[in-house]
C-alpha cells in the first residue's frame, strides 16, 4: 500500500490535470467589455441601416420570405422573353385577306353621277411573313408592369396570292356597261419593313411564383405588300380586257384601277398576331410548398402578401406557415 502511494498520487495528478481542462467559465470583465462593444455596434448598425431605402423596403413587407429582384435583371429577363415572342417567327398568311372598295363618279350632262362600285380583294394564299425581333426597350412601371417596346423586322418573302377585282355598274351606266368580276392567280411579295410592337408584362405574385403575363392589346401590324412585276402585268392585262365597248371601257379607266390597286398594296393589310405567341413566363426564383429538414418533409402553406416596384427593385413577399406532422 505504501509502495503504491506515489503511483496513486501520480494518477490523481494526471486525473486532476484532465479535470483542470473543464468548460471555461465567463470572465465577467471580458464579458462586460464585449457587451459594451456589442451595444455600440448594434446602435451604429441600426442608425446607418435606417437611412438605407432598400432596407426600409425590405422591412416594409409582412411575409416570412421576401424576394427582391433588381430592375436590371428584370429588364434583361423580360426583354429576352419579349424578343423571343416574335423572333424567327413565321406567320402563315394564308387566311389573311385584304379588301378595298369604292365608287366611281363621272360628270355627265345630268351632273356628277355614280356610275358604279369597284371592289378588290387579295387572298394571300401561300404567302408567309418571316419576323425578326430587334433589341427591345424595357422599363419597370409601378405597381406591377414591365413596359416593352419591341422592334420587329419583317423579311421579304414571295408567294402565291389570288386577286379578285369586281365592278358593279350603277344606274344609267348599267345600260352601256356590264358588271364583271376578275380573278387572277398572281405572285405577291411581302416587302421588308419594320414595325414597333408595344405592350407590357403584368407581374403577379401567386405565393409560389412570380409570373409575367403579356398584355399586348394591339397585336395588329400593317403588312405592306406588292406584286411581282409580272403579276402587275397580269392585273393590268385583266383590267384592260374589260376596257371594251359593251363592258366598262368608257367608264372604268384601267389605269386608275391599277393606281387603286397599287395604293392598296402600299397601304398594306392588317395582320393580327396570334395571342398565343405572347406566352406567360414564371421567373426563376420561386417558393416551395415543402422542404426537407433533417431528411423529413415539412409541408408549408404559402400565401402571397405583396408585390410592388420600388427603389428600382421588384419586391414580393409571401407568408409561410409550417404545417404539422412532417413526414419522415
Amino acid at each position, binding site marked *: 500500500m505504501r509502495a503504491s502511494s*506515489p503511483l496513486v498520487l501520480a494518477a490523481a495528478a494526471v486525473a486532476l490535470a484532465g479535470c483542470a*481542462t473543464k*468548460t471555461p467559465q465567463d470572465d465577467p470583465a471580458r*464579458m462586460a467589455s464585449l457587451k459594451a462593444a456589442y451595444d455600440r455596434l448594434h446602435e451604429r448598425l441600426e442608425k446607418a441601416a435606417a437611412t438605407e431605402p432598400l432596407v426600409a423596403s*425590405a422591412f416594409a413587407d409582412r411575409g416570412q420570405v421576401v424576394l427582391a429582384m433588381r430592375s436590371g435583371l428584370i*429588364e434583361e429577363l423580360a426583354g429576352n422573353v419579349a424578343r423571343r415572342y416574335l423572333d424567327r417567327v413565321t406567320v402563315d398568311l394564308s387566311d389573311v385577306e385584304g379588301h378595298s372598295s369604292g365608287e366611281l363618279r363621272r360628270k355627265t350632262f345630268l351632273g356628277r353621277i355614280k356610275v358604279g362600285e369597284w371592289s378588290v380583294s387579295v387572298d394571300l394564299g401561300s404567302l408567309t411573313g418571316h419576323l425578326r425581333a430587334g433589341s427591345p426597350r424595357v422599363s419597370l412601371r409601378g405597381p406591377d408592369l414591365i413596359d416593352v417596346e419591341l422592334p420587329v423586322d419583317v423579311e421579304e418573302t414571295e408567294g402565291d396570292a389570288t386577286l379578285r377585282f369586281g365592278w358593279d355598274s350603277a344606274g344609267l351606266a348599267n345600260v352601256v356597261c356590264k358588271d364583271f368580276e376578275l380573278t387572277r392567280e398572281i405572285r405577291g411579295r411581302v416587302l421588308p419593313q419594320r414595325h414597333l410592337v408595344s405592350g407590357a408584362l403584368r407581374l403577379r405574385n401567386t405565393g409560389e411564383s412570380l409570373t409575367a403575363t403579356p398584355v399586348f392589346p394591339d397585336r395588329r401590324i400593317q403588312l405592306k405588300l406588292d406584286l411581282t412585276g409580272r403579276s402587275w402585268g397580269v392585273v393590268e392585262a385583266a383590267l384592260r380586257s374589260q376596257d371594251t365597248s359593251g363592258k366598262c371601257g368608257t367608264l372604268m379607266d384601267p389605269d386608275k384601277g391599277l393606281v387603286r390597286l397599287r395604293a392598296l398594296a402600299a397601304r398594306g393589310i392588317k395582320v393580327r398576331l396570334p395571342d398565343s405567341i405572347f406566352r*406567360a413566363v414564371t421567373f426563376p*426564383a420561386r417558393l*416551395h410548398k415543402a422542404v426537407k429538414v433533417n431528411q423529413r418533409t415539412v409541408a408549408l402553406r404559402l400565401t402571397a402578401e405583396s408585390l410592388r416596384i420600388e427603389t428600382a427593385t421588384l419586391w414580393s413577399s409571401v407568408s409561410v406557415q409550417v404545417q404539422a406532422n412532417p413526414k419522415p
Partner: protein
Amino acid sequence: MRELRIAAAVVVGLAILVLAFAQLRPGRPPRMSVREALLSRQNQELVKLALAAENGTLLDFKGVLIVVDQVLVQDLIRAVTPLEADVGSGFHVKIDSADTAFGDGVALVRMVGRASVGGASVGSQVTVLAAIDVVELHPISGVLECRVSILGVEAQDATALGRNDPVGRLTETLTRGGLALLLGSLEIPVSVENRLSIPAVESKRLQIAAENLPLTIAVQQVKAFGGRLWVFVDAALAPSSTKVEGAS
C-alpha cells in the same frame, strides 16, 4: 524506501508539468466561454455590417435578394423536433426545442435538450449553439440549403457527461460530424433555377417549341441582421442572350 518516494515525487512533478504545459502552451489563446465566443463573433460581424451600412452597401445587390425571417427557420426546425442521435464518442443527444436569433451578424440557432454518455440513463441538459454559416443553391433543384456549424455547447451538469472536459469533447464531436447526425439538412423553401423557361405553343395553326434561357446563378454572400437572413444571389442571363435597352 527513500528512492521510491523520490521516484513518486518525480512522477507527480512530471504530471504537474504536463498539466502546466497543456494549460499554458505558448501561442494558444486562453479558452473562452461559449457566451464570450459568441459575443466576440457577433461583434466581428457587427463591425462589418455597420461599416457596410455606413457606406451604403448593406444591401448592395444586382440580381436576387432572398430575405428569410428567423421565425420561419425556427418553425422549420421545431417542426422536426425532437431531434435525437448518437452523435459520436459515446454521446447521445436529444434536442427538444430550438429557437433562432438573426439580429446581430450571426444566424444563431439555439437548441436545448439533453445529452448523455455511454448509454447512461442520466445526463445533463445541454444548450447547443450553432450558426447558419453557409447557404448554397442545390446544383439541380436550385433550392436553398443551409449548412449549420457549431459555435459551442453549454451543459447544466457537465460532470454527468464524464470527466476530462466532457463539454469540450461533446463540442468537438458535434463539430466533427455529430451535428449532421442530429440535424442532417435544413432547406429554405426558396429556389432559384438556372434557367428561364418560355413555354411552347401547340395549336393547329401555330407551333413554337419551348425555350430555356440559361442563367448563371450563385449565392454571393449571406448576412444576418434585423431578425432576418439575407441571401444575396447573383443572377444573370448567360452571355449569348440579347442585349436589352433599359429605359430606367
